């Protein structure tokens, strides 16, 4: 909207190329990967099966984070219950002793807190790894881009990629089957 004066000084955010179908964007992604680009992404209304391999991405590290999140939860619950029931407030109720032999009775809460902590790790893990929330982004200034959430399939090659060049990249994108290529400025 604004950004006309400074846009020339700054490098552009990148090229936004639209593709016809899932199949087309998938094939194109394989080519972009093979061309050796680093800072690029495929935008689609839903996750495309097999796109991680097509883009050459590995497995998400989220599962490890969640494993440790869950372990923290289990430990928290164990310490919370052990500490309060055995050390701080040992009462003999339900005919159960106030020592570690009562551990079966602690299982339900250990389980619940494991799940709770894991779920929080998932939520904040996704937000952290994806650097969300991010409400303002150069891509949003493209009128065309908003169709990514409807039925548009896009490949974005960013300007900060070392292989990026204003002319060649555009030609490359058109060559791999882009329907329309648009230069997105880093204005916002």
């Amino acid at each position, binding site marked *: 909207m604004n950004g006309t004066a400074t846009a020339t000084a700054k490098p552009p955010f990148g090229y936004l190329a639209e593709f016809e179908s899932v199949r087309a964007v998938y094939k194109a992604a394989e080519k972009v990967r093979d061309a050796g680009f680093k800072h690029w992404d495929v935008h689609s209304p839903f996750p495309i*099966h*097999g796109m991680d*391999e097509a883009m050459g991405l590995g497995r998400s590290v989220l599962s490890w984070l969640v*494993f440790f999140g869950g372990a923290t939860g289990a430990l928290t619950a164990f310490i919370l219950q052990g500490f309060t029931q055995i050390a701080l407030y040992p009462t003999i109720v*339900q*005919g*159960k002793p106030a020592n570690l032999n009562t551990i*079966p*009775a602690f*299982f339900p809460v250990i389980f619940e807190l494991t799940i709770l902590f894991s779920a929080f790790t998932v939520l904040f893990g996704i937000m952290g790894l994806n650097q969300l929330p991010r409400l303002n982004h150069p891509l949003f200034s493209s009128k065309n881009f908003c169709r990514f959430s409807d039925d548009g399939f896009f490949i974005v090659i960013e300007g900060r990629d070392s292989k990026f060049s204003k002319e060649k990249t555009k030609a490359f994108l058109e060559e791999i089957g882009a329907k329309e290529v648009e230069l997105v400025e880093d204005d916002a």
Partner: protein
Amino acid sequence: MSAHKSVKDLPEDGEKFDIKKVSKLLGMLFSVGILTTIACAVIFLNQEWRATMAYSWLFAFIFFFTLALGGLFWTLLHNATNSGWGVAVRRLMENLGLMLPWLFVFALPFVVIPDVRGALWEWMGERREMISEAEDYAASHLETETAEWEEKVREARARFSEVRSGIESGMAKATPGEKAFLQEKLDAETAAFDALKSEDAAPTVESIKAHHMKESNVLLYNKGGFLNMGFWFFRFIAYFVILTLLIRFLRGLSVRQDADGDEKRTMLARRMSCGFLPLFAVVTTFAVIDWLMCLDYTWFSTMWGVYLFAGSALSSMAVLVLVLTYLRNLGYLRDVVTEEHYHIMGKLMHAFVIFWAYISFSQYFLIWYANITEETRFFLMRNTGHWNTVSILLVVCHFFIPFLALLQKRVKTTPRLLCAVSLWMIAMHIIDMYWIVIPERGPSLGAGVVVPGAIFFDVLAFTAVGALLAYIFLRSLGKDSLYPCRDPRLEESINLMN
């Protein structure tokens, strides 16, 4: 990402397992099986060892029974859920289930030798004793009891006439209100007296017997409707007849489809499997109630059937993984089964590891928490002394270790690793079954906690049943194609993507 595979590229008649390739193994299994079976037979013939051996045999039998039962379950589930992924391995499930009719042969000692079943299921002997004792008692006491009853009636008559005359004399000078009250009293007295002197109240052999049985063992008497020999035999036969019919019907459909490729057979199998599932549930539940829960007829748990089912489905999936890998190593099923199938089988194993833990924890937990005398016996026996070590071992090794192992995708998709887990799971299932059957032996036979030396019998029985069944299983693999080669869903299955 591999290219789409077509059924057309596969051999038209499927792959047949050539048993000649494994003739050495078969020969070994057969000879070991026969030798150990003879040894077992010798032990059974020995009066002194028979009871000890009975438990060993039950342990061996029930372990393999649960495996075969699991084969049937997976076949049923696969058909009923209209599933596509498992077509490639369905024949293996069917073959595993097909061991059920054979297991009847191995169950024969329980039916044929009275001492064997008597040693295992004490209610049989106790019940017989209870009945004969009650009969003797009834026969010898009929006269005295009748005399006693007559005496009682006589006394009551005297008392009744006294009361009646008293009331009647009182009625003469009573107010209307009092009259009604006295009349009521008189009616009650008359009714009580009539009841006592009526023919029904007269002691008979039957009534004395029933009364005596109730007195001597009320629990066994009350359970007589379920725990009696006639019904027990009927159930025993019925279980095997039903299970045999189920598996033969489904496998028959499947094999006939190999020849004609008729889609309708798939539809029929699906419809029938849905209907068979309730039947399967009932048979499984009562079979394990009969054979395992009744090892101690005083103990009970509503969860019992589900608990055995969970272990059965889990370990039979492990067996399927092992058999599959074995066949693939021999060069079969290479084009049909991929790592994706392993992945799903691994996931199912994982699910059942959790399910087993859930069920067994719930069962233990509720009994432990409520702490009611009649229920805790089972766990008192297994959570004290050396058996407690086994219990704790089960918690750690039947749940935590495989759970953590199967958490990783790599383990589920690598056949070698999944086989290791499967072997582990089967070992744990052996221990689980041992832990269910064997602790009952020592106390039942009056030989302390553990019968010394009996473990050799256990190993022997296990080897005998195992080797022979493995022999039969391998041979039955060779009869038909190793996968349903004309199943309409085969293409979907071989292109499986997780």
